[in-house]
């Protein structure tokens, strides 16, 4: 064991090796591949009307978030947060359904946070493992967790926030 990467005794005091640049790269890649440039372009008429008839841009009014735990040498949470409208559109696109059920929404946002979380996990000290995603209505409440970094994406006109928190 070297002195530079020896884990500290107290949980959460090990510096997480997740920078804003890393998180931005991960988030951009996830949304670009799974929800944009992957196979087919999103239908033009849908993209147009949806963005125009959707007046809310503040996810706080009707938000959805999904959180996944990273457990092991480093412990914390990875969180994806967006408006319900955005989450429903993501679900429609990924699941190719017209009517989105609560289960569809859980599954879609949960899988997005799962993929982001898996990539974040590869940046923190091993060994570590991922929990299962938990998707809930409303804003994410950090509780005692300490912010590590967060990034904002614009997905088809909808703000999406991706953040990493260390357990304190």
């Amino acid at each position, binding site marked *: 064991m070297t002195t530079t990467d020896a884990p500290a005794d107290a949980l959460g005091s090990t510096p997480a090796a997740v920078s804003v640049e*890393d998180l931005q790269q991960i988030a951009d890649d996830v949304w670009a*591949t799974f929800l*944009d440039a992957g196979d087919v372009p*999103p239908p033009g008429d849908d993209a147009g009307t949806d963005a125009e008839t959707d007046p809310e841009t503040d996810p706080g009014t009707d938000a959805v978030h999904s959180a996944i735990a990273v457990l092991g040498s480093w412990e914390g949470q990875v969180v994806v947060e967006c408006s319900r409208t955005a989450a429903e559109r993501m679900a429609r696109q990924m699941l190719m359904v017209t009517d989105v059920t609560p289960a569809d929404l859980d599954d879609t946002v949960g899988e997005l946070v799962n993929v982001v979380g898996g*990539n974040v996990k590869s940046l923190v000290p091993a060994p570590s493992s991922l929990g299962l995603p938990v998707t809930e209505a409303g804003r994410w409440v950090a509780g005692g967790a300490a912010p590590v970094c967060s990034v904002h994406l614009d997905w088809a006109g909808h703000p999406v926030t991706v953040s990493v928190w260390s357990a304190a």
Partner: protein
Amino acid sequence: MTLSPEAFRFVADLVRRESAIVLETGKEYLVDSRLRSLAVAAGDADVNAYVDRLRRPDGAREKSKVVEAMTTNETSWFRDREPFQALSGTIFQELMQRPNASRTIRIWSAACSSGQEAYTIAMLAAEHVVPLGWRVEIVATDLAQSMVDRTREGRYSQLEIGRGMPAPLLVKYFQREGTGWKVSDQLRSMVRVQTLNLAAPYPPMPVFDIVFLRNVLIYFDAATKKQVLGRVRQVLDPQGYLFLGGAETTLGIDDSWERSTIGRFTVNRPRGAVAAPTVGTAPLSGLAARKVI
């Protein structure tokens, strides 16, 4: 706001010129999504406004960012597969059967772009040549300093690695670094990188056994093609091999070459070279690993 046809055409021409990657009509959404963050960073309202900026005289720096954004993730490892099957299954063996006091094979990856071709060759050499006590020296060149720097750095994003890298070779020759992967010191030590303009006289070069000149000639006019082939001929061993892209040929341009077939693949050789031994194409190590139980 959607990308205008003029803006798309401008970006497609730029990318084709600088990287030999063709963006077909229908890929407008790809251009739009890849350039959106660059537009925001430049303070432009949308991608169309950003493309207008590229057309201005001071747009050169932004242009190189665009080429990088558009070509990232578009270059495959083992691109086209057959050339590399011919290389590892036949040509390496043929070269190692020759008398060669230095037991060294020299290969040039011309127009190396971000280095995937050079490191693909290096991986095959590390698998098939180095274990037999031979050395392989690879020279990778590109016109663009940015591409030379990227090749030298040897760091690839997760999405770049996803393009055709066989998993057994990934874990053998790359290490995770941040969100991406970094090529091993072993491969890096086999590859020397420098800038070079194929269309101008070359600096002193070693004599190569193999030259990879793939998907480059198509961007030159007939006279330049002939000049480039002539200069390549001067640095290639009379018994050497020239790899061109699938849509490229020396026919009708320079008659000092002849075609030789290895399996499904056609390679070019200086006229008068001894025919390659007819060896069946062996499967690439680490590729098509199925049926192993």
